[in-house]
């Protein structure tokens, strides 16, 4: 295996380990969040974002790494994001957690994986159609909040922390 593949493998092992320890690989946790009864996955995701954004802002500020925004293509994000949400509610897994769920013995996740591979093949078949329709509506390109709002990334970091910490306190108070 190449260096690139080894690096991916070890990073994935650590990622899967933490996902499993946080108990976020479960169908019940994901659907529980969508039913607004169990906020475990939201606590997990927001904590990762809060910590990650500090390091990424720092490394980017030092010129060590480059950012990689995905395009703000309105049709793609609205239709695609909506379709993902609808499928996610039924499937009960997202792409990364499906594989992890299989690792912790929840073998029914295999059906979700099969469905997603079929979905990927279907998307590849329909790509010319989507390109001519949904994807061609309006594309604002690879934009970030920093340039769009014209603020320092540290203002956004502070803002996200200021929103999330009280939210966490509220989750704990409500026992969510």
């Amino acid at each position, binding site marked *: 295996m190449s260096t690139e593949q080894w690096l991916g493998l070890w990073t994935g092992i650590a990622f899967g380990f933490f996902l499993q320890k*946080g108990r976020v690989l479960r169908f019940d946790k994901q659907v529980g*969040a969508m039913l607004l009864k169990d906020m475990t996955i939201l606590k*997990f995701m927001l904590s990762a974002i809060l910590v990650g954004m500090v390091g990424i802002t720092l490394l980017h500020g030092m010129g060590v790494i480059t950012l990689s925004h995905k395009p703000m293509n309105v049709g793609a994000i609205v239709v695609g994001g909506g379709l993902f949400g609808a*499928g996610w509610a039924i499937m009960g897994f997202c792409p990364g957690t499906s594989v992890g769920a299989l690792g912790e013995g929840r073998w*029914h996740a295999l059906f979700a994986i099969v469905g997603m591979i079929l979905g990927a093949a279907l998307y590849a078949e329909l790509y010319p159609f989507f390109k001519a329709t949904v994807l061609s509506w309006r594309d604002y390109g690879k934009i970030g909040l920093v340039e769009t709002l014209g603020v320092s990334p540290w203002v956004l970091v502070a803002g996200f922390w200021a929103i999330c910490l009280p939210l966490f306190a509220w989750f704990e108070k409500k026992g969510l």
Partner: protein
Amino acid sequence: MQWKTEDNGWSPYLAGALVGLLAIISVWATTVLMGKTNYLGASTTFVRAAGLLERAVAPERVAANEYFTTSKVKVDWQFMLVSGIFLGALISSVTDRSFKWESVPPVWAKRFGNSPIKRAVGAVLGGIVAMVGARMADGCPSGHGLSGMMQFSVSSLAALCLFFGVGIAVAAMVYRGRV
């Protein structure tokens, strides 16, 4: 706040914060070792997996497909990352004894019964819809939800709101207060 969950897991705040650290180390390590900053993500791997499988039966079809050509069907960094998630979850669950064979998730069983066939149909159909959506939006809860949010991408903030917004609406319709 508790650091351990009832079933011996870790607090989601702690486990999440560690993933945040992992994401930072990963962007740095990929930049240094691969010469290009790579962000955590998962859904492109499903395109590559579909391409690899389809190539075994109909290689000319994959070669002629524009989407497969731009996504580059190969076992790359992210493909190994997704494979690693399986191994990491296996190691963690076996060592803390939370590994469990499960054919139908409890919440699903409460609403739709114990039939694994019903669950399989739901998972396959849901999976198809979700992956078409993820590829259209160019990301999933990892690529948009974690990596995109960490760099304040406009598209990721919008995508994450839609993932959850539509997810909440559909879950409410599907489960109708029965769980």
